[in-house]
């Protein structure tokens, strides 16, 4: 097998302009942008470019990140106009030498690129994101709750949610309605309603059957387009609505 050098694998290094939104709600009246020239190779991610800026130019840039592999859901931001995970977005796939990063829309800003997740977690908790049953697997003589592969298939896609908030950032209803429960929580409501082990369907449907609940979704589908884990919240929400309208049982 031919030896491939690191240089060949990573490709040529190009200089790109990284525009980072700076905003401190404690001090600033409005958002401003700082520009940095950073090197990027074929596999360089937006997060790596931001960390390059923090290391070599300005350590004060505020950004939340952790796993760097699209698992923790921490580094969601607006990259060239669309909500994406910074660790999951390669600069080369943006087809632009100018990369603009901004904090996610529809989330209060802590500083620069870091936003508050309290509301997302509140709405997530609101839909009771756990199995509701009278019995428990922990009882000594109880058997584990069995499930067929077909039953698993009904919800496993929705269990991939990493709570990154990109869907809520892309949602046109979230852009206008501060009380809307949001696609993340609605998709998670479906995840548990569709789980054959769960017995809390009626209580969950009651929670989302609200004027700022599921009826505010107008099936624009933007949530599904930006989901980095293939959750497809729009599909889950429509199925959930089917339960409320009597088309599913």
């Amino acid at each position: 097998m031919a030896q491939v050098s690191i240089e060949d694998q990573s490709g040529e290094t190009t200089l790109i302009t990284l525009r980072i939104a700076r905003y401190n709600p404690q001090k600033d009246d409005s958002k401003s942008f700082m520009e940095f020239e950073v090197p990027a190779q074929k596999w360089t991610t937006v997060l790596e470019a931001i960390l390059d800026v923090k290391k070599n130019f300005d350590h004060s840039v505020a950004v939340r990140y952790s796993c760097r592999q699209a698992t923790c859901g921490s580094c969601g931001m607006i990259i060239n106009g669309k909500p994406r995970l910074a660790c999951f977005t390669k600069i080369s796939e943006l087809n632009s030498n100018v990369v603009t990063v901004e904090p996610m829309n529809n989330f209060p800003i802590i500083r620069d690129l870091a936003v508050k997740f309290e509301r997302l977690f509140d709405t997530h908790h609101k839909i009771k994101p756990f199995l509701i049953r009278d019995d428990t697997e922990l009882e000594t003589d109880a058997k584990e709750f069995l499930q067929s592969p077909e039953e698993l298939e009904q919800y496993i896609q929705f269990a991939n949610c990493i709570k990154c908030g990109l869907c809520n950032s892309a949602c046109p209803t979230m852009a206008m309605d501060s009380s809307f429960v949001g696609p993340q929580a609605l998709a998670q409501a479906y995840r548990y309603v569709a789980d054959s082990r769960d017995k809390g369907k009626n209580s969950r449907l009651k929670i989302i059957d609200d004027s700022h609940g599921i009826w505010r979704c107008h099936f624009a589908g933007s949530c599904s387009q930006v989901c980095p884990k293939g959750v497809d919240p729009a599909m889950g929400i429509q199925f959930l609505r089917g339960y409320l309208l009597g088309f599913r049982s």
Partner: protein
Amino acid sequence: MTQDEHKEGIKGMANPRRYGIERVAYILMRLSGLGLLGYFVAHIYETSNILKGRMGWDEFLQLTQTTEGHIFMAIVIAMCVFHTVNGIRVMMGHVGVGVGQPARPDYPYTPASQNYRHKIGIYSAIILSAVAMMYGLAVMFGE
């Protein structure tokens, strides 16, 4: 909207450029809905002129027989057709028809709910409304 909430507001909601044809359909649905609501209010005002007798009615009706009136009516036809056809698509989606089936997602994670059936529905709504508008224009200006 307060800066604290960092909501995109109407500017973000009405931006059709970022999320494909589905978002364009979403915005056209809102615009056509508002347009038809405005038309219904104007229509009630128009028909109320019958209380002024035949002369008053004929006089007001002349407003719709102008070039501007014909163009306005053609736009109403387009809005009506788009709102109806796209509305049927959305209602079917709302009950889970044509939005795909849950499955283990594979990279690059193309969302099943944004499938060709709905895209065909959206393009059909746009094309049908354009055809209906042109037919309306042909009828009104062809007299």
